[in-house]
């Protein structure tokens, strides 16, 4: 199978869908003439023209709202944020308008919109540029939140997100755009709301999503050498969350570690922890462990950042703890 970069998978998904459906357009900072701040829309202005690939000023509130308004009136917009850190100045349009329009209107308006861009830390970018808002968006009814971890999943999930009739928050990573992975030539989509067991195992379940899941894979490799078999579940979607896949795995392994790049208070990990204790209490042979970032804004210094971010050693330690080893 051919191998392509994550950014190419994103561009392919958008381009294929735009060829199929003329109501779709792409809007955001640097997406057109510059070919995308991270080149995830390379070649799209040339192919689709300035009516469908639009550079915006630095006005996240303005263009997020224009996207929602146009979605009320026949378009299927893809709105790119250069990072979701910048979505905060436009978050009113996402939470109050995109997520709630259908409900407030008694079901009159579908809002088929995708807000996409990178999330979480990406090197030493410090406090304002290193934030993971998956759990913020996932907290809000009306939205769906998708976070792929490799090019194959990114393409299939983004195509589904664009076709979805509900607003989808689609979160990537600056540090994944260059990642290469196998992506088939032909047309395919992946379902939203379905987790993927990336690695089967019997001793412990590790749940993760997005780029940080790579630390889980590395830890699983290390632990395998020590005779510990890890099952690694990639959530792929955090709203709606695929609880069944997690519960099924925990009922098999009886132990759970959750790895999530997010502040530790009230996040996706805590939600999973609640659901598992509520629905699989008798299957647990150890308390659930979760690994998050430090409970502080992201620091700049490399020494501090290494301490702040979860890594494979943290995962190994947590797995051994739930195994009482």
């Amino acid at each position, binding site marked *: 199978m051919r191998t392509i970069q994550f950014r190419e998978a994103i561009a392919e998904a958008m381009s294929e869908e735009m060829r199929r459906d003329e109501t779709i357009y792409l809007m955001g900072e640097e997406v057109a003439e510059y070919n995308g701040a991270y080149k995830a829309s390379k070649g799209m202005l040339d192919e689709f023209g300035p009516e469908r690939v639009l550079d915006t000023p630095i006005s996240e509130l303005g263009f997020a709202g224009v996207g929602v*308004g146009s979605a009320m009136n026949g378009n299927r917009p893809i709105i790119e944020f250069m990072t979701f850190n910048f979505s905060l100045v436009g978050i009113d349009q996402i939470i109050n308008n995109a997520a709630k329009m259908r409900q*407030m209107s*008694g079901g009159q308006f579908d809002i088929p919109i995708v807000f996409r861009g990178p999330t979480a830390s990406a090197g030493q970018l410090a406090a304002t540029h290193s934030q993971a808002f998956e759990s913020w968006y996932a907290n809000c009814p009306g939205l769906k939140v998708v976070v792929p971890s490799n090019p194959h999943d990114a393409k299939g999930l983004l195509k589904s997100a664009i076709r979805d009739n*509900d607003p989808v928050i689609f979160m990537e990573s600056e540090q994944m755009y260059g990642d290469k992975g196998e992506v088939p030539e032909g047309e395919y989509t992946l379902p939203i709301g379905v987790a993927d067991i990336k690695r089967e195992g019997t001793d412990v379940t590790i749940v993760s999503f997005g780029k940080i899941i790579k630390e889980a894979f590395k830890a699983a490799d290390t632990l395998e050498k020590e005779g510990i078999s890890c099952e690694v579940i990639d959530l792929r979607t955090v709203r709606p969350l695929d609880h069944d896949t997690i519960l099924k795995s925990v009922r098999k392994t009886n132990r759970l570690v959750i790895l999530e790049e997010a502040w530790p208070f009230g996040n996706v990990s805590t939600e999973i922890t609640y659901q598992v204790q509520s629905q699989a209490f008798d299957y647990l042979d150890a308390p659930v462990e979760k690994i998050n970032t430090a409970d502080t804004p992201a620091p700049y210094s490399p020494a501090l950042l290494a301490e702040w971010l979860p890594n494979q050693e943290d995962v190994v330690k947590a797995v051994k703890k739930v195994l009482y080893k």
Partner: protein
Amino acid sequence: MKKITKEVYLKWYEDMLFWRKFEDKLAAVYIQQKVRGFLHLYNGQEAVLAGSLHAMDLSKDKMITAYRNHVQPIGMGVDPRRVMAELYGKGTGTSQGLGGSMHIFSKEKGFYGGHGIVGGQIPLGAGLAFADKYFKREAVTLCYMGDGAVRQGSLHETFNLAMLWQLPVVFICENNGYAMGTSVARTAHTTDIWKLGLGYEMPCGPVDGMNPVKVAEAMDEAIERARSGGGPTFLEMKTYRYRGHSMSDAQHYRTKEEVEEYKKIDPITQVLDVIREKKYASDEEIAEIDKRVKDRVKECEKFAEESPYPDKNVMYDVVYAQEDYPFLSHKL
């Protein structure tokens, strides 16, 4: 512009009187606690709506506004009984009882809400116009806001985008003098709101918002500009609301005399004066209109009273287009 004939004056009189009496009825049933939540009434501002509707092509033009929004959808053709039922929280309401006072919508009639966050609807209005331009529909969006909303960043970001892309939209500030209880002069160095258009080179100007003829003339020019590809316009309608911001407003920020001064230029009275002066209707005919309005309002109240509350499942059914969305449970 469509001629302002005898029929137009009579329609204006009946429409505006109906809107006013509809709002008065809501105030009355609010005090009886049949309608709850916030209640923002349009009394005094009716000429803005009447004049705008005259200049619109209702077969394709659209309207979007903030939370003072009960009567605009009625003007666009929505059954007023369903608007009142929405305020009663009934299943027959325009949003099946999910939206309430601040969130009236009608996709069918081109009324796009009904928005509760001050200024949040401004980029949406540009977005509606973006889609109309994208699909080459030659339709125009009328995007209304209050004098408080113009100080939000959303206005400025949207003005820039709307001019950049020459969107077919008319922005209308209904300046009723007070953002809740704070006057325009207390919150801005410049009080000529229409001048905010100048920085974006957007055609702009002030309009006498108490006179539907003046409103219709200004709106017609703006709508035609938008429809013919000339881009957006920003109009400041100088108007006035007689009632408080919402129902709990003691109105200490203004004098009774000020309110009385504005009632002298009341839009309904102005229209009625023309009707009398030009003998468009006899006293008996006017009395008939008054009676008809009273009956229609009563009919709305009856419909809302007698309608059933929504089924509990509707709370889930309307959130996602996806039919089998797996909602989390919230209690045993």
